[in-house]
Structures are given as C-alpha cells and as structure tokens.
C-alpha cells in the first residue's frame, strides 16, 4: 500500500514540478517511479484506512486497479514518446492526469472518488483545448459544462447517501438496506459517474471532446480517462447492488455509439463514437458480474484505440482533411501496419487482444448479453471496414508511440491466449461476426439515415433526462421489491 501511495505521490509531485520546465524528463521520471511502485504493490493489497479520525481515506489494490495501473503506464509511455518534442505545460498536464487516474482506481470512498474524478476532468479540459486547435476550445467547454453538471449531481447523491448512512466508505455501504433517500442518492451518484464516463444520453460530450483533442490526447482520453467514469460506476454499483442499471446503460451506449459510428465520416468523431460503443461492453461486463473480463477488455481497448487514434492523426495531418474518403493512401507502411493491427484487434479477430478479451467477457455473460456482444461486434467490424482504404501504404514513415503500444498489445494477447481457454467455436464465432460485418458494410453504406446532431442543448437535455430515467429506474427496481 505504501508503494502505491508513493507512486501516486511521485506522479503528482513530479507533474507539478514539471510546470517549471523540463516537463518531458520529469514525466519520464514519474513514469519510472510509477512502474517501480506498480512492481512493488502487485499483486494487490487489501482495503486500508488511511489517516486519523473517524473518516479515513480508504484505498484498496484489487486486480481491476492493477490492470488500470498497467494500462495507464503503457499509455503514458506512448504519449511521452509520441509527443517528446512538445514543450510548454503539455507533459506536466499529462503527468498529472495519469497520476490522478492512478489515484482514482485505488479509491474506495465516495469523496476520494469525487476529488479524483474532478481532477481528471479538469486536467482533461485543459488538454482537450491544448494548442487551441479549431473547434477544440468549444469542444472542451461543452465537456466542462456537462461534466461539471454531472459532478454536481454526484455531490447531491453523496450528500443523500452520507446523510442516510453516516459513512462514505463503499465497503460499509454494501450492507445497508434500501431506503428512499439512499436509493435516490445512489441514482444521482451513478448518474454523475455516467456523465463522466461518456455513457450515452448522459455523457454526450464524448464524441466532440475526443474528436477535437490533439491526437495523442485523444488516445489517452479514449484509452484511459473516459474509463475512469466506468470504474467509478463499477465501484459504486458493486457497493450498492445496481448491476442491472449498469447493464441497461451498457445496452444504450453500446447500440447508440454504434449507430452513430456506422455513418460518421469524420475519422476522429468516428473513433470517438466507436469508443462510446465499446464502453457498452465494459458496462455489460461490470453490470452482469464479469468484472475481470470487462477489465481485460478495457485494457485491450485502451491499447488498440490508442493505435487507431495515433494512426488516424498521422493520416489526417498528411491529408489536411478529416473525412475518411480523403484519407486513403496517406500512410507509410509502418504506420499503416500499426493501424491495421488496431482495426484487426477492434474487429475481434483472433488472435489479438480484442478477440481474447471478448472471449473472456462472453464466458460470464447470460445468453442475451452474448447475442448483444455478437451484434455490436458485427457492427463494429462493419463500421471499421470504412478504414480499410487507409491501409494502402505509400512509402516510409516513422513509428513513435506505436512502438510502445504494439509490444504491449502483443504481450497482452499472448498472456490472454495462455490464460483463457478459448475454444474453436469461439474462434469461429468471432470470425463469423467480423465476416458478417464486412458483408453488411456495403448494404449499410447505402442507407443514409438522418441521425439527430448531438448539439450542446441536446446533450444537456440528455443529461437531465438520463439522470431522471436512471434514478426512477433504480427507485422502481429497489423499492418495489420487498
């Protein structure tokens, strides 16, 4: 436990010092400290109360936290390498952001979760707007307005839960029977975390913010930061027993993100919508009692979505356009290969991490969850067929952050294949789903549905309506059953 705390402290102190100068070197030093801390506290530690008095801070290191530490360190290394030449406060902000995510996954009380969620949000707002690219400030302001509104709801929930139970520790909430104030409070807590997690209807800031951020930051946000909301949802829901609500949110965001991804032509918005749909897998896993499969998928998705964002960023910088049809044949063969690995993996094809993690996730899901996973998998393959023209390589190109991500992806795939027994039937199903997607793609491309644009007004309404719906569903499900 001391090692984990020391790792977080090193990240926060070095990240703060990095504002004074030498940001990238201090970021690299923080990374080393973090990796050392991870090696020291693995494989985990039990829940520990920290600090004097009756209201300590509670921390625990479980496999979920361990996996997210690994993911955070790999992505930080990739961003450091990719953006090594970037000066200013960039690396200071990235280091602090990674440090707060490390703290968040260890947190086991409601207020510590709140502080970490707010810190990751605040640093993300700064990084999305970093460099003031076109549209980025506006995207970041929307992200800020919606997330802050969500966090206000979270605080209301926290007040209700604390007033009812007199404790903030998640482990102590688990045994408390439902009462109206507690259930409404739980609904508000879940809504706030869902806004932060970019879940559909509540967190519609996600496509814009991830689509407009600098490319390496998009990779970090989609790979790691947005999942912090999902981790918070998982922690709260496993204390308060609201798994079905999580699964419901998973269905909503899985299908909603997919429908938008299928017809999106702006490459970064497309990848961002795809992130929303992949969050559906995580929510289904966390909600239906498959947390380890969901965590494995979160790590795998973090790696291959980062590859996709880095490759897409290089293609669109070279083409000077964000439309997918304009981007064909813009990448050198190494980058095209890295992008191809990302597409292969997200389509769930064996033997890469996407396939392994989906297999591990499916094993613990009920039948309807498996069918839903299959449908979203086929849809994902169909939507990523759009990116295939990008893979025609032209000339050479240099890899940077990919050189961290590819070995990590291969190592995770190898580890997963060795530890989970994946049958030939599962392999056949994965290939069939991807093939179905490829066949569906030309048909789907013909249809051009007019999807409602996700404006700020609609996002605010979605947030309020989603909160109301979620809270009412929770009240109905918890209080109607004696």
């Amino acid at each position, binding site marked *: 436990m001391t090692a984990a705390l020391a790792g977080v402290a090193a990240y926060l102190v070095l990240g703060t010092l990095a504002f004074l100068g030498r940001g990238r070197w201090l970021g690299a030093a923080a990374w080393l400290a973090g990796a050392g801390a991870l090696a020291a506290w693995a494989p985990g530690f039990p829940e520990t109360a920290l600090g004097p008095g009756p209201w300590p801070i509670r921390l625990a290191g479980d496999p979920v936290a361990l996996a997210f530490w690994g993911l955070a360190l790999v992505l930080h290394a990739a961003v450091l390498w990719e953006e090594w030449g970037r000066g200013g406060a960039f690396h200071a902000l990235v280091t602090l952001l990674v440090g707060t995510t490390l703290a968040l996954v260890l947190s086991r009380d409601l207020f510590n979760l709140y502080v970490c969620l707010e810190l990751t*949000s*605040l640093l993300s*707002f700064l990084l999305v707007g970093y460099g003031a690219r076109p549209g980025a400030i506006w995207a970041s302001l929307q992200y*800020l307005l919606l997330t802050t509104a969500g966090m206000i709801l979270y605080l*209301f929930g*926290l007040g209700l839960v604390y007033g009812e139970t007199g404790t903030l520790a998640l482990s102590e909430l688990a045994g408390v029977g439902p009462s109206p104030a507690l259930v409404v409070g739980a609904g508000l807590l879940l809504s706030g975390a869902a806004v932060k997690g970019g879940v559909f209807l509540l967190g519609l800031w996600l496509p814009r913010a991830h689509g407009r951020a600098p490319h390496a930051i998009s990779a970090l946000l989609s790979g790691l930061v947005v999942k912090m909301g999902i981790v918070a949802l998982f922690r709260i829901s496993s204390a308060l027993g609201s798994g079905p609500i999580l699964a419901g949110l998973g269905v909503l965001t899985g299908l909603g993100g997919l429908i938008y991804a299928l017809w999106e032509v702006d490459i970064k918005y497309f990848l961002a919508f795809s992130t929303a749909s992949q969050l559906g897998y995580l929510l289904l896993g966390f909600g239906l009692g498959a947390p380890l499969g969901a965590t494995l998928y979160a790590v795998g998705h973090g790696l291959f979505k980062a590859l996709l964002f880095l490759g897409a960023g290089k293609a669109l910088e070279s083409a000077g356009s964000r439309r997918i049809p304009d981007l064909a044949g813009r990448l050198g063969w190494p980058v095209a290969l890295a992008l191809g690995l990302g597409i292969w993996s997200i389509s769930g094809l064996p033997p890469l991490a996407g396939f392994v993690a989906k297999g591990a996730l499916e094993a613990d899901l009920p039948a309807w969850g498996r069918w839903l996973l299959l449908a979203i998998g086929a849809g994902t393959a169909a939507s990523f067929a759009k990116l295939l023209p990008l893979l025609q390589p032209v000339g050479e190109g240099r890899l940077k952050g990919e050189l961290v991500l590819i070995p990590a992806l291969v190592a995770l795939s190898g580890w997963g294949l060795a530890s989970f027994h994946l049958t030939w039937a599962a392999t056949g199903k994965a290939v069939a789903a991807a093939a179905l997607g490829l066949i569906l793609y030309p048909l789907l491309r013909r249809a051009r549905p007019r999807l409602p644009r996700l*404006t700020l*007004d609609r996002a605010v309404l979605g947030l309020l309506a989603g909160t109301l719906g979620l809270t009412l569903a929770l009240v109905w499900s918890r209080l109607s059953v004696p």
Partner: protein
Amino acid sequence: MAGPVGLATAVGLAGLGFFVLAVRRELIFKLLGLHVASGGVGLFLVATGHRPGGIAPILGLGPGPTVDPLPQALVLTAIVIHFATLALALVYVIYLTERHHSQDAHRLEREEE
C-alpha cells in the same frame, strides 16, 4: 428548523441553476446557472450536517453538541474545485467570444463545426 429550510433552498437553487443551464443560449448564463447549482449543492451538503442546537465544529469553542464537521470539510474541497473549473470556463468563454463576437451557443455550434 434551519436544516429543512437549508435543504429546500439548496434543492431550489440547484433546480434554478440547471434550468438556466438548459434554456439560456448565452454561454455566460450557462456558466452562471452552473455556478448557482454548485452553490446549491454546497448548501445541501452543509445542511445535511445540521444538528438541532449544534454549534460550529471548532475545538475549544465551548461545550454542547456541534454540527457534523465532515460535510463542511467536503464543501471546502468542492468550493476549491468549482472555483478552478469556473475560472477555466471563463477563460474559454472569453476566447470564444473574442473569436466569434458572440456568446450564442447555437451560433457557435454552426461556426465551430
């Protein structure tokens, strides 16, 4: 008496804030709405710690019951975070206003795409 009145005021403030956030088109009003709502939630937390006849939870202030100190500590943290967020939001609004000579969310929506 102070507890229920505080709670009701807090919920009212938050409702007003979210209403302004949802219906006004000018960015500065949206920020104001958010700020009022964050004030509401601060009041809510303090009001949940209310104890009848309680005094401020300061050591050495005197005998008698005190109000719950934990929500007050939480609110201090939340106020700092809301201050930082609001400051950043104002910087962004100033930037956008100088670029577009407008604060209208609908117009920004069209021009920033």
